[in-house]
Each structure stands twice: as C-alpha cells, then as structure tokens.
C-alpha cells in the first residue's frame, strides 16, 4: 500500500482586494488539513496542500488552476471566493476533469459536475433575510454593491423576491471593488435624499468597511434603516470595528456565536492556531468543513480520481460547526442552515432567526 501523501490544490488570494476574507478561508482549509493529518491522515497517508496566491485576479485564478491540474498532477482544488474567480476556474476544471470545492455563498443559477458548492445558494440566505426585513423594517430597498457578477446577479434575485412581497427597489448603485471612502460618503448623500427602509449591501472586500463607516459618519441609525448583507461576516466587522458594525444585519449559515458542541471545539482550535483575536466566519467554516467532507469520501474510495470520488462525495454528511450538513446529490450544493444575526458590541452576531433544520439548496430557485 502506498504511503505517498494526498496532494491537493489550495487557491485563495493572499494579496489584492479580497485577500482579507480569502485568507480566512485559507486558514479554515489549513486547520482542517492539520486536524486530519494529526489524526493519522486519510488511510494512513497525509494530505499535503499545494498553495498558490492568485492575488484577487481572475485570470491568475484560471491559469493557476490549470497549472495545478495539468502540470502539478492534482485533481482536487479547494478555492475561490468571488463568483468571477469561480466562473474563470469552471471551464478549466470541466475540461481537465478536476474537482473544485467552492466554500462561498453565491448567486446560484449554476451547476457543474466538477464543482462541489459548500456555501449558501440564494434560497438558503436571501429568502429568509428579505422576509425578515419586509416584516420588520419596510419594503423600500436601496441596493448597493461592488461592481462584478455576484452583486448584479444577486440583486436581480433580490428584486424578484422583493416584488413577490410587494416591495420595491428605490435605489441601486455599484461601486468598483477598489472604491475609495469618498465614493461611499457621496453615496450616503443620495441615501439621505431617498430615505429607504433598508440598505441592502453586496459590497465585498476592503470597501465593506468604507460603506459601514460612511453610514456611521452620516449619523444614520441601524434600528430604523439597517444595512442588510449576505457577505458582511465577523472578518469584515473586525475590519470596520464593532462600534461601526453594531446593529446591522447579516444572513448566513454560520456565525461564530452558533451554539453547537462542534462549533465550540472548532472556535477553540481556530483561536489556538491563529490567535485569540481572530474570529471565525461563514467562509472559514465552509472552507473548514468541506475539507473534512473530502477526507471522509476519500477514505472510502482511496483514490482522488474525480469520476470515482464524486459519487461518494454526493452522499456525504458531516457534523459541521453550523450543525449537521450533507451534500445534495441532485445539485452538488449543500444542505445548510439558514440564520439571521445582528452585530453586537463585541463584533459578534446575536442570533435573530434560525431554521429548525438544514435547508435544501435550490440554486435555480425553482420553487420561488
């Protein structure tokens, strides 16, 4: 029996505009790999990560993915945060028959036999969030996002969901991923004029902190006009400071504050490994549990060949920090928990709502 290591690709940006959140995904991936190796590896063989930094650049994502599959002899890649980077890697993994594990919420409307999606589809976060906002804050939404695929596609869905609930979009603005604080200050003047019930944000990366800071500087009150988001996690709140983030609302499958035994242990190990002031977040958690799901499937088939591994992955279950999750064989997406949280004074999320069980993914919103 071979004792060669299992070599896997890891593709998260450590530089560039989305590096802050992608580095947390890298840490989640590494923590899981270290745990598996400490427990003896998979069938006695350790997992060895081959790590590249695509630098928040989609072209580099595609080129490095191709290098991993074609030259480095890898079959499995853990990686990608933005939808544009995933869309760049997708044709590569399909052509070379690799398996990309994608640990980020996204806008749905995609299926690839070569991708395992472990972040939330819109029905697992947006639907719950819109329901709550319409019931508690009102129906006039102001949409603000970063200018790339995910915010535009996500807002198309938000618009539809809102229409079904007799709500309407009263403003819609997209700012460059590298937008400056001054652009957000300008935006707040428009918000003041329009006076919406909710600011719905799909701003990602460093600019997230500028948005919330500009909101605070404008003197708005989140009790009456909260910023609602699907991407503002503990990592972004740490960037902007808890005082700036406090009171705003995020929908996610996972918060650090989730009360499961599996999460207690996860948070403890994460802090021990990366420092006490490093919070976990939804992207860390997905990046972490997906490696464990991979290892579980790999132990069963003992080969990384995608054609053999994938059918096993599609029936895998795992006791993740967010709760029990399983891969949905129909869609290659994951049955995940739906939660709403509000930022508190410690930069953590107080739970507002929680599903009673994992919600089935419906990436094409067939039932909405």
């Amino acid at each position, binding site marked *: 029996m071979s004792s060669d290591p299992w070599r896997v690709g890891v593709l998260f940006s450590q530089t560039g505009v989305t590096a802050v959140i992608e580095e947390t995904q890298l840490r989640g991936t590494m923590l899981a790999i270290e745990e598996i190796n400490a427990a003896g590896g998979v069938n006695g063989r350790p997992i060895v990560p081959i790590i590249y930094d695509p630098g928040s650049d989609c072209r580099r994502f595609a080129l490095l993915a191709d290098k991993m599959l074609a030259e480095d002899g890898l079959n499995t890649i853990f990686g990608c945060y933005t939808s544009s980077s995933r869309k760049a890697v997708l044709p590569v993994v*399909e052509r070379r028959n690799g398996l990309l594990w994608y640990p980020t919420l996204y806008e749905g409307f995609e299926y690839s036999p070569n991708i395992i999606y472990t972040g939330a589809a819109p029905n697992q976060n947006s639907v719950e969030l819109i329901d709550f906002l319409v019931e508690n804050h009102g129906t006039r939404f102001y949409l603000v996002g970063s200018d790339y695929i995910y915010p535009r596609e996500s807002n198309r869905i938000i618009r539809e969901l809102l229409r079904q609930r007799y709500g309407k979009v009263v403003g819609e603005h997209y700012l460059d991923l590298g937008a400056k604080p001054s652009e957000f200050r300008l935006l707040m003047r428009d918000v003041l004029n329009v006076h919406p019930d909710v600011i719905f944000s799909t701003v990602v990366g460093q600019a997230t902190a500028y948005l919330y800071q500009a909101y605070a500087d404008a003197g708005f009150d989140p009790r009456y006009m909260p910023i609602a988001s699907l991407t503002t996690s503990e990592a972004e709140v740490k960037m902007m400071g808890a005082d700036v983030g406090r009171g705003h609302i995020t929908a996610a499958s996972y918060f650090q504050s989730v009360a499961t035994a599996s999460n207690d242990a996860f948070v403890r190990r994460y802090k021990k490994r990366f420092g006490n002031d490093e919070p976990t977040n939804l992207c860390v958690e997905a990046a972490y549990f997906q490696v464990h799901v991979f290892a579980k499937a790999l132990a069963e088939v003992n080969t990384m060949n995608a054609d053999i591994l994938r059918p096993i992955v599609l029936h895998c279950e795992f006791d993740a920090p967010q709760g029990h999750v399983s891969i949905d064989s129909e869609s290659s997406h994951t049955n995940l928990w739906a939660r709403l949280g509000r930022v508190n004074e410690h930069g953590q999320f107080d739970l507002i709502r929680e599903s009673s069980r994992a919600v089935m993914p*419906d990436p094409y919103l067939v039932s*909405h």
Partner: protein
Amino acid sequence: MQSTTSCIDLRDVQCAVVHSRDRDGELLIRCVQRMGGSVVNIWPPGETLEHPIDMLFCALEPAALTLLRLATTQADLAVVGILDASNSGHLQLLKITTPHALLIRPLEAHEIPGQILLALNTARFQARQQSKIAKLEDTLRSYRKVEQAKAILMSRRKIGEPEAYGYLREQAMRRRVSIGALATAIVDASEMLSEEQVE
C-alpha cells in the same frame, strides 16, 4: 517509445478494432494490448456493436458506416477513425462520421498513442458536458412542472402565488423528494382526475 506509451493506461478500457487483420490491423491490436487494453477484432463490420466497449477503432469505409453512425449516439465512446488516404471518398466519410481522432494508413506505431490519448480525453470531456446538459434540461423541465403545479394549487385551493410556492416547498421537504418530482406528481394526478370527470 516506452515513455510515450507508459503514460497511457488502457487496463480498464474495452476496445474494439473494426479493421481487417492485415498489417495495419495487427499493428494496432498489438499496440493497444501493450497499453493494457483488452481488444476484440471485428471484420467485416456488422450492423451493431455486440460487446459493451469504451473505445472504437474503425476503418472509415462505406461498409462500416452504420456501425460508425451507431457509435456517435453513445456519448462516452471514444472513436478513432482509420483512414485510407488513397480512397477518394475519404473526406466525405470523415465528415459524416466525426471521430475524435484519426490514424492514417499505413499506420506508424509511434503515432498511435497520441491519437488514443486525444480520443479518450475528448470523448470523456464530451460525456461530462452531456451529463451537465442533461441535468440542466432536467431543471428546465421541473421549472415548467412547478409553474403548472402552482397554477393547479392556486385554482383548486383558492390561494395566492406565494402560498402555492410555500405549500410545494413544505410538502417536498416533508416527503424528502425534489420540488420537481412533487410538482410532476401533482400535475399528473390532476390530469388523471380531470380525465375521469370527462368520462
């Protein structure tokens, strides 16, 4: 030579060589066997492929046309055409049969592995794309069924659109079936009931 063939492993690949057992036929069969492939030789070509195979090497001749056409209907079958360039109708045959790779007579042993690799890669990629398309078509179909089921629920139960969607979601979750499957069941049952009423 050794290094070229060693990166191709045909141990799990069932091959058929549809070619007369002349010098070229022998050369090809030996080459495939060296890479670990199991081979059946068929000549003259019949109308059907009797054995389940993963890879077909076939002479591009009018006699093999039915067999080649049949081969194009099997999505994951890798097809290598064997072409006699002296045959005047060869381009026409190539156009009709669309193999994944091509060998030209007289065969050269060192040219065979490259064409095998090419054919296997292309056929497998095509098969994956086919399975993706099938899945997407399935999603489209269930979209339509959900719309129909929703309309039925709205008129039967006198409820609005969000309630009808909610009902479908809830029932599908409870029964642990996909929304598409549940919607199909509702549409079928409703059609059956209205037929009975007509009778």
